């Protein structure tokens, strides 16, 4: 099946919002989704965006029964490792169930990897910015980005997908756990902060 991966535009936020909910349903946590497509528009398409997004779309003749041609997305942002520097974190990767097994997930992830390389290299003043194709990077001695992501431990299809691409489970290997301060616990701490 032919498909295209491209950078999301503001107009795609309704589709992205729809798919975010589909992914949350898949992860058994739909009641945790609080963002609207307006939030996504504000947070991703302002002068200082907090994320970037790629979408996968199919030609009209392959649209879903509800008429959608946007069938997958990858949402990512740039992070910073005090050990290695700039990195890319892929927050969400999702392909609608009827469109899996056709290379779309792989295509989305490959583009995130490409974006990571280009971003890192374009930020280096010694790098010739006219060289666009990431395949030109092969053989160049550069510190390339590392991609990080997280997966739920019961999500075997996704675990298999990522491990086949070379992903290493750092929770198993090095014991890393995700922690958070959220809602009331965050507010309580914030109220006790030293005054400016």
């Amino acid at each position, binding site marked *: 099946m032919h498909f295209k991966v491209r950078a999301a535009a503001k107009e795609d936020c309704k589709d992205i919002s729809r798919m975010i909910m589909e992914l949350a349903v898949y992860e058994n946590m739909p009641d945790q989704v609080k963002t609207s497509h307006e939030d996504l528009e504000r947070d991703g398409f302002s002068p200082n965006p907090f994320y970037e997004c790629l979408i996968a779309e199919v030609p009209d003749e392959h649209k879903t029964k509800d008429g959608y041609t946007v069938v997958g997305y990858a949402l990512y942002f740039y992070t910073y490792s005090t050990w290695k520097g700039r990195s890319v974190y892929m927050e969400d990767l999702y392909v609608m169930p009827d469109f899996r097994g056709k290379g779309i997930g792989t295509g989305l992830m490959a583009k995130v*990897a490409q974006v990571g390389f280009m971003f890192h290299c374009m930020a280096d003043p010694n790098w010739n910015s006219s060289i666009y194709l990431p395949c030109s990077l092969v053989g160049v001695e550069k510190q390339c980005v590392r991609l990080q992501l997280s997966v739920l431990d019961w999500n075997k299809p996704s675990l298999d997908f990522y491990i086949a691409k070379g992903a290493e489970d750092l929770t198993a290997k090095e014991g890393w756990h995700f922690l958070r301060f959220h809602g009331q616990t965050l507010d309580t701490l914030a109220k006790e902060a030293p005054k400016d």
Partner: protein
Amino acid sequence: MDRFKLRKAEPKDVPDILRLIKELAKYEDMEDQVILTEKDLLEDGFGDHPFYHCIVAEVPSEKQSNNGPVVIGFAMYYFTYDPWIGKLLYLEDFFVMEEYRGFGIGSEILKLLSHTAVKTRCSSMHFIVAEGNQASIEFYKRRGAADLSLEEGWRLFKIDKSSLLKMSSGPEE
């Protein structure tokens, strides 16, 4: 230890920040993994587009023993995005030198970070901790942190350079 100050890091703090990054890595038994340099930290934190923000904790020089450094703790953070709840503050590194622990400095840093998160419209503050680091896990849990890996089953993965190269030079669609 009644007098310490928290402030935003400045370019001049970069050597101290790198020193503390290495001390934290050593505490986590991963000292050889730090390949970042002072030049990287300077460009990445204090250039046109900062990739991180940093708070440092300092003590007045007369309080030091053995003419040690003035900067004795730091926290490095940046903003990330959760498609379910929006903007987050991500705490990348957080460290107070051993001899300055137990005086409330870490607590005050955490409160300042939380205040920053709330002020900048973040729903949550996220971070990772190694499960062997019981002292830190207790520190965070006492203050209300939830372990999402235990509670919801999230596992952290990485994909390194060679695998990324293979993926990014794959066939075009």
